[in-house]
C-alpha cells in the first residue's frame, strides 16, 4: 500500500490554475523530492498534502485514507517549514512538547519523549532557551524535533535548508539523510536546489507550471531526461543544446548544425530523414581532442574561462552557438585560443525540436 496517493489533483486560485490533473503515488518509507523552479506549484502541492491549502479537485489519500476534508492535525503528518515557524515565546522544550500537550499525552511521557528526541538531534543543552537564542541551524533542528516527536506517518519538508548558509546547509542535508535512514519515515521534501534533490531523493518529481515533467530516481532523471526542460534544469553546469538537422548517412545519421556535421549511429533514437532535432550534451561529457584526432569535433575559440578549482568551464563559440565544456583544470586553454572538443556517442541526448520531447527509444 502506498503512503500517499494523489489522483487527478487540481488547485486553482480563482481563475488561475496552479496545479493541473496531477497523479502521483508515493511508496512507504520512500524519500520523494518535489523539484522545480519558483512558482511551479511544488510548495502548494506540499501544503495541500499537509491540509494547509484546500484541494480544488481530485483526491489525496494518506495511508489509504482520503484526507481531502481532514484537518491538518488529523492527517498523521508533520511538517518542517522554511523559516522554522517556531513559537517564539516558548522555550525549546515547550516548542517540541506543544503537539503532544494538545493531544493530552501525560506529562511524564512527554518529558521522556522530548528527552529522547532532543538527544537524537543534539538539542539537550538548549531545552530551556528561547528560539531567538539559537542559531539558524539549531532552530531548524528544533523544528525537525517538533515534527519527529509526533511520530508521524509522513514527514513534509518545505525548503527546510533555504534559510541556512551554504556550509550549514551541507551539514543539515547530511543530518536529514541520516535521520531518514534511521527512521525510515515516508518523506516528501520540497526544494529548488537540485543538489539537495539529487543527494537526498529516492525519487525526484520534477514539476513545471503545476504539471509533472518527469518522475524518476536521480540517476534516471540525470541520464535519461524525458524532455528538454528536464535536461536543462538538472545538471550543473547546464546542458548544451545545439539545433541540428538529421540526415541519413550510410548506416548511421549525420547531424548538421552549429557549423559542423556530427555523425552518429543513432540506434537508440527515433529519427527520420530531414528531422529538425536538438542535440543535448552535458559540459562534462565534452573531452579535449588531440590535434590529429578525427571523429566528431566541436571547434571554436575559448571566449570565457571559469575556473572551478579541479575543473574549468570553457565556453567557446562554434558556428555562432555558445557551447560550454567542463574540462580538468590542467587542460584549460588560454583565453581566445582555439579549442577542439569531442564526445562519446553514448553521452548525447536528442530531442524533438518542436515538442521538446526526448527522441530516445524506451
Amino acid at each position, binding site marked *: 500500500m502506498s503512503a500517499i496517493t494523489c489522483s487527478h489533483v487540481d488547485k486553482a486560485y480563482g481563475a488561475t490554475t496552479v496545479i493541473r490533473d496531477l497523479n502521483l503515488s508515493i511508496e512507504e518509507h520512500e524519500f520523494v523530492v518535489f523539484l522545480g523552479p519558483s512558482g511551479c506549484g511544488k510548495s502548494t502541492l506540499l501544503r495541500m498534502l499537509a*491540509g494547509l491549502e484546500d484541494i480544488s479537485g481530485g483526491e489525496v489519500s494518506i495511508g489509504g485514507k482520503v484526507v481531502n476534508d481532514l484537518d491538518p*492535525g488529523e492527517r498523521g503528518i508533520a511538517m518542517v517549514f522554511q523559516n522554522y*515557524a517556531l*513559537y517564539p515565546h516558548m522555550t525549546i522544550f515547550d516548542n517540541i512538547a*506543544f503537539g503532544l500537550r*494538545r493531544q493530552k499525552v501525560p506529562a511524564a511521557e512527554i518529558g521522556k519523549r522530548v528527552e529522547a528526541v532532543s538527544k537524537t538531534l543534539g538539542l539537550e543543552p538548549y531545552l530551556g532557551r528561547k528560539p531567538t537564542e539559537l542559531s539558524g541551524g539549531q532552530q531548524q533542528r528544533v523544528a525537525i524535533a517538533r515534527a519527529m516527536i509526533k511520530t508521524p506517518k509522513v514527514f513534509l519538508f518545505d525548503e527546510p535548508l533555504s534559510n541556512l548558509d551554504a556550509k550549514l546547509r551541507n551539514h543539515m542535508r547530511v543530518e536529514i539523510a541520516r535521520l531518514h535512514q534511521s527512521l525510515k519515515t515516508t518523506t516528501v521534501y520540497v526544494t529548488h536546489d537540485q543538489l539537495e534533490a539529487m543527494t537526498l531523493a529516492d525519487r525526484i518529481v520534477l514539476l513545471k507550471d503545476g504539471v509533472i515533467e518527469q518522475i524518476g530516481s536521480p540517476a534516471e532523471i540525470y541520464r535519461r531526461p524525458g524532455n528538454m526542460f528536464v535536461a536543462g534544469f538538472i545538471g550543473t553546469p547546464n546542458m548544451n543544446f545545439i539545433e541540428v538537422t538529421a540526415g541519413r548517412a550510410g548506416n548511421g545519421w549525420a547531424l548538421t548544425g552549429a557549423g559542423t556535421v556530427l555523425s552518429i549511429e543513432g540506434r537508440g533514437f527515433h529519427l527520420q530523414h530531414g528531422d529538425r532535432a536538438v542535440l543535448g550534451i552535458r559540459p562534462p561529457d565534452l573531452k579535449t581532442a588531440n590535434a590529429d584526432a578525427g571523429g566528431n569535433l566541436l571547434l571554436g575559440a575559448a571566449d570565457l574561462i571559469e575556473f572551478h578549482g579541479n575543473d574549468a568551464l570553457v565556453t567557446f563559440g562554434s558556428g555562432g552557438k555558445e557551447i560550454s565544456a567542463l574540462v580538468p583544470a590542467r587542460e584549460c586553454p588560454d583565453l581566445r585560443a582555439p579549442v577542439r572538443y569531442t564526445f562519446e556517442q553514448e553521452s548525447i541526448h536528442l530531442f524533438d525540436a518542436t515538442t521538446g520531447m526526448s527522441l530516445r527509444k524506451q
Partner: protein
Amino acid sequence: MRRRSFLPVTFLVPTLAILLVLSMVPTLYAIVIALQNRELSTPGYSWVWFSNFADLFLDRRFLNAVWVSVKWEIVTVVATMVVAIGLGVLMFEVAGPRLRNFYCLLFIIPVLLPRVSAAFVWKFAYHPLYGIATYPYRLVTGGLIFDPLSKASTALFAVASVDVWQWGLFFAVIVLKLLETLPPQPIEAARLDHARRWQIHAYVTLPMLKAPLISLMFVKMIESLRSFDLIYVMTRGGPGVATETLDMYAFSQGFIESGKVSYASAMAVLMMIATVITFTMLWKRVQA
C-alpha cells in the same frame, strides 16, 4: 561644533517652556492650595498644611470615591480588553478581507464620537421608557420599568458600558490588525500540532502579541482615569454616590456643593501621587 549644539536647544527650549508653564504651574499651584484652607465663598485663607489630607481619610464619601474609582478602573480596563481581544480574534477567524474592512470602519465610529455626545446618546438609550437599550426588557416583561442609570447596583456598569462601547470596539480593530501582522507559519505549525482554533490563539498568537497588548492595556488604564465627562453627563455621580469617582467628588466639593477648593485640591494631589506610584510600579513589573 558650537552651531551644532545650538540648534537642538533652539527647537527644544520654547516647547519645553510652554509645556512647563502649562503643566507645572497648575500642578504646583494645586499643591500650594491643598496646603491652605481656601473656599470660594470667602477671600481670606490661612495655611493649614496637612490637615486637608488628614480630613480626607476620615471622610467616608472620599473613601467611597476611592473605591468607586478603583472599581471603575478595573471594570472598564478588563471589559475593554476582553471585548477587544474577543472581537478581534472573532473577526480574524470568521470575516474575509472585505468584511473585515467594513467591521473596522464600523468599530472605529464610536471612538470618533466626542465623549459628551456618546454619553448623551447612551443616556437616552438607557431611558426607562423610551430607550432602545431598555426596550428588550420592556418587551419581555410586558412593560416593566428598568432604569439602569438610577439603580445603585447597575449605574456604574451602565456608564462603563459606554466606555467599553467606545474603546473596546476601537481596540478590537487594533487587535485584528496586530493579528494580521503575525507571520502565518507558527499558526500553521500549531494547526499541524493538533491545536484547536481557540488553542491557537490562547497558546500561540496572543502570547506572541503580549507586548503590544500590554501597551494597549496601559493606554486604556490612563484613558479610564479621565472618566469625568462621561459620568458627569450620565449620572453626575449618582444615584447617591454610586458612581462618584475621585475626580467627580473633587469637582463637586470644589465647585458645586461647598466651594472648598483647597479640600478638592488635596484630593487631586492625592490622586496624582497615587496614580504616579501605581503606574510606575506596574510598568516596572511588566518590564521585568
